[in-house]
Structure formats: structure tokens, C-alpha cells
């Protein structure tokens, strides 16, 4: 199935999504990776506001290359999401609706995705030029000292994504290879 979704995302909009479905995402996506997640967690510990409204938000684990003159973004494929696992359940509990990245997540993240009716969406790993093509605007909104790891607000149109973890507990990294291997047995 293919779904067109626009941020902010509601649980109702995410509920029908299943691992392996395609999502074309439009609206606002915030970027954050290791260093930004560490700082966001420290903000929460101190009782401070996060750099962006977390309720219904989509976070993209990405550190783009510098933009060339006349381009709004450089190459912008996903980074390995597992490095953010330890920070993630807390953000999901606060209303984070979608994570965009690549690679397997911990059991704690999977459980939290189901509990909160959230999704984990896959961008194509190593396809920096392709993923950048759906970004229309970029603004650094926090921690410019972090360079490529600064928090950016991206406006995206029809960003092509694949559902990796769904609200019903589906996991494409389990079901995808299993379905392929099963197809070989049937031959």
C-alpha cells in the first residue's frame, strides 16, 4: 500500500500503516542525530522546552552535506538509527510520531512504537542525492555549533519512505527477508 501523509501526524493517520508499505511524506521534518539527541535529553532533564514541538512530529536522523550555492540542501540520506535507541522511548512517550532512518532498532524502541502508536520509517541508506530531492526548504533552528548535527527544520514534499516498524508490531527487517527466503523454499 502507498500512503500520502502530512505532518503533524496523528495516531489515527498512522494506525493503518504496515511494515513494507510506502509513505510519501510532506510537511515539516526535524533533523536530529547523536549529539542533538543528547542535548534534547539534557533539556528534558532540566525541565526545559525542546527546540521543536514534539507532539505529532517527524524526526529524520540525518546529517546533510553543506548546501552548494543555489541549492537548499546537500546530500541527505539517513544515518544508522540504532545509535539513537537509548534516547528514543522517552521522546515517543512525549508524542514523537515518526522516526526516519535506517537500520534495526532495539526491543525497547519496538515496544515503545507499539505502545505509542508511532512509526519508524526507512529512508534509502546511502542514497544521499535521491533523498535530498524531496527537500524544499531548510532552516537551522538549534545548536549551529554542532555543524552537520545541528537541528534543522526541513520542509519536504513527497519524501519517499518505507514503513519499517508499524503500530501493530510489524518489522520489515524480520518480515522482508523471511518472505524472500520462504519464496525460495516454494520453488
Amino acid at each position: 500500500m502507498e500512503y500520502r501523509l502530512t505532518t503533524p501526524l496523528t495516531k489515527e493517520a498512522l494506525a493503518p500503516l504496515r511494515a513494507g508499505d510506502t509513505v510519501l511524506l510532506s510537511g515539516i521534518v526535524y533533523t536530529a542525530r547523536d549529539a542533538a539527541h543528547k542535548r534534547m535529553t539534557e533539556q528534558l532533564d532540566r525541565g526545559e522546552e525542546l527546540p521543536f514541538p514534539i507532539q505529532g512530529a517527524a524526526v529524520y536522523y540525518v546529517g546533510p552535506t553543506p548546501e552548494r550555492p543555489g541549492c537548499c540542501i546537500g546530500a541527505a540520506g539517513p544515518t544508522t538509527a540504532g545509535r539513537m535507541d537509548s534516547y528514543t522511548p522517552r521522546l515517543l512517550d512525549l508524542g514523537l510520531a515518526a522516526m526516519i532512518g535506517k537500520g534495526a532498532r532495539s526491543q525497547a524502541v519496538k515496544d515503545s512504537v507499539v505502545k505509542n502508536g508511532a512509526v519508524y520509517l526507512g529512508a534509502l541508506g546511502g542514497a544521499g542525492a535521491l533523498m535530498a530531492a524531496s527537500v524544499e526548504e531548510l532552516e537551522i533552528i538549534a545548536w549551529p555549533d554542532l555543524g552537520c548535527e545541528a537541528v534543522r527544520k526541513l520542509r519536504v514534499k513527497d519524501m519517499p519512505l518505507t514503513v519499517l516498524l508499524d503500530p501493530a508490531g510489524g518489522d520489515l527487517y524480520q518480515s522482508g527477508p523471511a518472505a524472500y527466503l520462504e519464496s525460495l523454499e516454494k520453488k
Partner: protein
Amino acid sequence: MKVITQEEISSLVARLCIQANTSLPADIREALDKAREEEPWPLARATLGLLQDNLTLAGEKCLPICQDTGMACVFVELGQQVALEGDLEEAIHEGVRRGYDQGYLRKSVVGDPLNRVNTGDNTPAFITTHLVPGDTLTITVAPKGAGSENMSRLAMLKPADGVEGVKAFILDTVLKAGSNPCPPIVLGIGIGGSFDKVAYLAKKALLRPIDQPNPDPYYADLEQELLEKINATGIGPQGFGGRTTCLGLAIEQMPTHVACLPVAVNMSCHVTRRATGSL
């Protein structure tokens, strides 16, 4: 004696950093094309097609193929008849600084592994130098991203583990890595030597074009067997399932101690980058 200046080296390294990050070597592109033609699983075939589209788009828009433009791993073959004017390593660092600035490449190096402040210019380069006969200086820049690098592993096996132990370790490394290193992967494998040499061998193996088998038929057969086993795991492109888990792999071997069997796997991805130039 042939004289080569610091400036000539910096210019060459800068050019190679940009070239490596925006256009893939022919062997990797051809392996991707062949994999797509032979891939039986529809989602995997479509995914490989998107990776090909990405290469085209990167070329058209002068964008890096992958946003992780890597640590600048630089391999130097220095002819013994070359007289260097200036400092070789400083010349390479300066080349990396220029290439990553002029090519709009991402600066991904922190100056200290624990205090983690970005150096801001992607230096230092990670330099390996070998003296060779002749009067030529050959430099290969092989930018290495962390998504795959972090999935690399090294083991000091027992001689009794033998080739079966080596195969089991390599397959286990691929299975543990799963979707993280952005499959389809490329593997550099080192066998033998010492703790430090085996890691170097694995890295060096990634410099060999993947369509060139090991010159020793025993190891060439082992490469083929491992490739088939890895492509039977079902991980597939991006870990979504399919045949194409690995585009190719290379083994480099060397003598070792009577009591040692070191093995190292340097994991790389479908964006295995290298560019070579000579002075």
C-alpha cells in the same frame, strides 16, 4: 631524483576527495547493474533501481552520492626515487581540507574520541604510507562512512578453528550487521598477520576492485563461496529482503604466528568509494 612539491600533493588529494565522493569506481557501478539484472525479488530489484537512480542524480546535481562523505582514508605508495619538497603528511591534510571545503563535502571528524568536538575541516586524514621502487608517488583516497565501518569486526581465532571458523566468523559478522551497513555491502577481509596487520589487510582488501579475484586459487574459491553464502542469507538490499546482500568481497592474506589465526572484516556498503592518482 624526481622532485614533488607539497602543493602538487595537496592539489591531487583535493581533487581525489571530490572525485571519490561524487562518482563510484567502475567495478562497483557494474556490480550494482549486474545485481539488479539478476535480482529475483521485486522489492529488492526496485530498491537496487533507486540506488542506481541516486548515482545518476548525484552526477547531474554535483551532489555527493552519500551524505556521509567519510573519514579521508589516504593510501600512499611513495617511490624510493622521489625527493619530497615539504612535508608529505601536512600536504595530504591540506588536500583533504581543500577538497572537503571546495567539494561541499561533510566534515565528519571529531578531534578526540571522548570529548568529541568536530575539527571543522575533516582533518586529520588517516594516512597509510608504503615505500615502493621507482620514482612515482601514487595516492588513493578512499572516503569511509561510519554506518558500515561501525559494523566491522576482528577476531583472534585459534588455529584449530581453521577455515570453517573463519567462514563462520565472517557470516556471523554479516548477520549481526543486518540492515545497519546499508546493504548491498562490500567486504574487505584480512586473514593472518598480527592484531594490527589483519585490520590493515581488511582495509587494503577494499581497495582491490571487486571483479578481481584473489590471485591464489584457494582464496579465490573461498571468496566465491563466501559471496554465495552471504547472498543466501536473505537480508537483501537495505535489509528489506532479497538475494543481493553483498556486491562483492576481497580477501587479503599473509603469514602469521604458529599460535595465531587473526581474521578481520572491514564492512563497506554499495557506496564503496576510491579514487587514485599519480605524480
